């Protein structure tokens, strides 16, 4: 999760936005949240700050230039300046400061395609547990540590919201993995 407090130059109010890379195996897949609005997108940025994003079926190239306190972006034929009021970044999935995970949640809204494990199964670090589809792209969900499946709370074909609980996990003891 990457939180940012932005202020459009010329505007008065700063707005909090969140950008999350939802799946470590799909580095181009993001969810963006501004207020109540959540946008799912595919995006890529190159070393110069040039990139593109795809939202639904739309393709939107953009160019960016960073300075310490602001970012200029060119989108749709116009250049905008944003002041960076505040920023906090957290790692998206896996090894957060909180340690091993006890739940597996849907990083994006989508459809569950396949569940590779059952309750009681043990799993290895980064083993594919659940495969889901979002925006016509498959995502493989895993956690960076091993453990045991306590409960499966979803089923194949199910439509899930972002953050929906998919499984409860019992992380392996540290010396076991």
């Amino acid at each position: 999760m990457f939180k940012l407090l932005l202020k459009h130059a010329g505007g008065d109010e700063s707005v909090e936005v969140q950008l999350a890379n939802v799946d470590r195996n799909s580095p181009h897949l993001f969810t963006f949240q501004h207020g109540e609005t959540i946008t799912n997108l595919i995006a890529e940025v190159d070393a110069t700050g040039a990139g593109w994003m795809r939202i639904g079926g739309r393709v939107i190239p953009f160019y960016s230039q960073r300075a310490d306190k602001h970012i200029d972006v060119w989108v749709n034929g116009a250049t905008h300046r944003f002041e960076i009021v505040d920023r906090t970044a957290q790692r998206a999935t896996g090894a957060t400061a909180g340690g091993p995970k006890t739940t597996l949640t849907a990083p994006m809204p989508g459809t569950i395609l396949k569940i590779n494990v059952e309750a009681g199964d043990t799993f290895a670090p980064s083993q594919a547990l659940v495969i889901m589809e979002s925006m016509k792209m498959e995502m493989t969900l895993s956690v960076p540590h091993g453990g045991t499946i306590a409960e499966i709370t979803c089923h194949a074909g199910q439509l899930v919201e972002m953050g929906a609980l998919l499984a409860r996990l019992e992380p392996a003891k540290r010396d076991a993995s």
Partner: protein
Amino acid sequence: MFRKVLIANRGEIAVRVAQTLQEMGIAAVAVHSEPDRNALHVRRADEAYLLEGKTSAETYLRGDKIISIARSHGVDAIHPGYGFLSENEDFAQACIDAGLVFIGPPPHIAAAMGDKIVAKKTMASAGVPIVPGWAGEGRIDIEVVRHEAAKIGYPVLIKAAAGGGGKGMRVVNEESQLAAALESAQREAGNAFGDARVFLEKYITDARHVEIQIFGDHHGNAVHLFERECSIQRRHQKIVEESPCVALSPQVRAKMGEAGVRAAKAMGYANAGTVEFMLTDSGDFYFLEVNTRLQVEHPVTEMVVGRDLVRAQVQVAAGMKLPFDQEQLTQTGHAIECRIYAEDASKGFLPSIGRIAHYVAPSGPGIRVDSGVTAGSEISVYYDPMLSKLIAWARTRDEAIEKMAWALRRYVVMGVTTNIEFLRNVVLHPEFRAGRTTTRFLENHAIAAAAPEGDGTESMIAAALAARSGRGRHAVGTSAGALVAADTPWARATGWRAY
């Protein structure tokens, strides 16, 4: 034909002239100031030599240094571009004296046309309509001026005989302002040009700026290449030009073209030149001045007439006959040019300086970009902030406007503030689309910003992505960084070559 030509200029025109020279098998020699060491016009040349110094006065205006470089490197001819030394008769004469060909009209023409009073008299005697006015001889008596101004009718315009760039120019709306305006115009002209002579003209408001491209050779031939309308101006400088002019009937067009050719013949004109006119609603036109050089806006003529004017300039300078006669010249389709400036239209067109971080020019059928910059180019305080010219050609004016708007919407320049969005709002303005343009267009119409596309989410997403990636910060911070920028498909489309 020449083997080697030196281009005494910089920016887009130096790049553009080099291309034609190279097409013709002629080596293009660039000169450059210290800040321009790595400029695009240097990289596109076959040879490049340093003019020590930074300011124009130390570098691109130093005719002596330029001629000395030309002589020591086997140069045959010098192309002056526009601006700088292009209309300086002393430089043209010095080239000739040094055994170099000056690619432009003979020096005496630049000298005669540089004096606005002489130019007007020459045109009047050639039967070219001139703006009603009065030019006194010797010391000007204010009572005589008062009498003449009243005869012309207010508002009147005071202009400097040696004028240019709006210096020594005053609009006088009523008699009570006359004495003070006259005095300050004379003072300003004296300071700017070392020549305080001024003259009076009827001030024509709400007219179009329409100019005729003329071309002559050293064999007595002269033709015109039709008109360009250049009414959209800020601070007396053109920013949007087009050809044909929608306001010209075939009869008036023919009359203006004939006037241009008559003017060319009266001067004994050789090479490219432009005769500028004011065109009123009633279809009357009045001579303004002659520009004895290639114009910034020459590409709109090239697109519509289908001729390379620089090629013709080189051929004529080499002593060849004009490569076209009047009957071979026709106008096809419609072309519009927008001048892309590093300036902030929302702050009185204040120039903007900086390093260009992203540069992606539009391309495609009917689109031409004459650019002097690319990613990594430094826009400094030393020179004119024009970056490039975007030209759109299509079958009709409506299609050309749509094409121009499309291209402006896709023209990416980051690192300096540009007038790209402003230009798009101008060409999409209902009055521009309707072809109702005068030189006061930008004064009379507020150019509102276009409504942004979408709800702003996309720009925030782009900002968040950029902030997260931690990139785009030092992408083109150095020339080595510029090579990194060149290594992307976006930058590569600009014509970068990383050796």
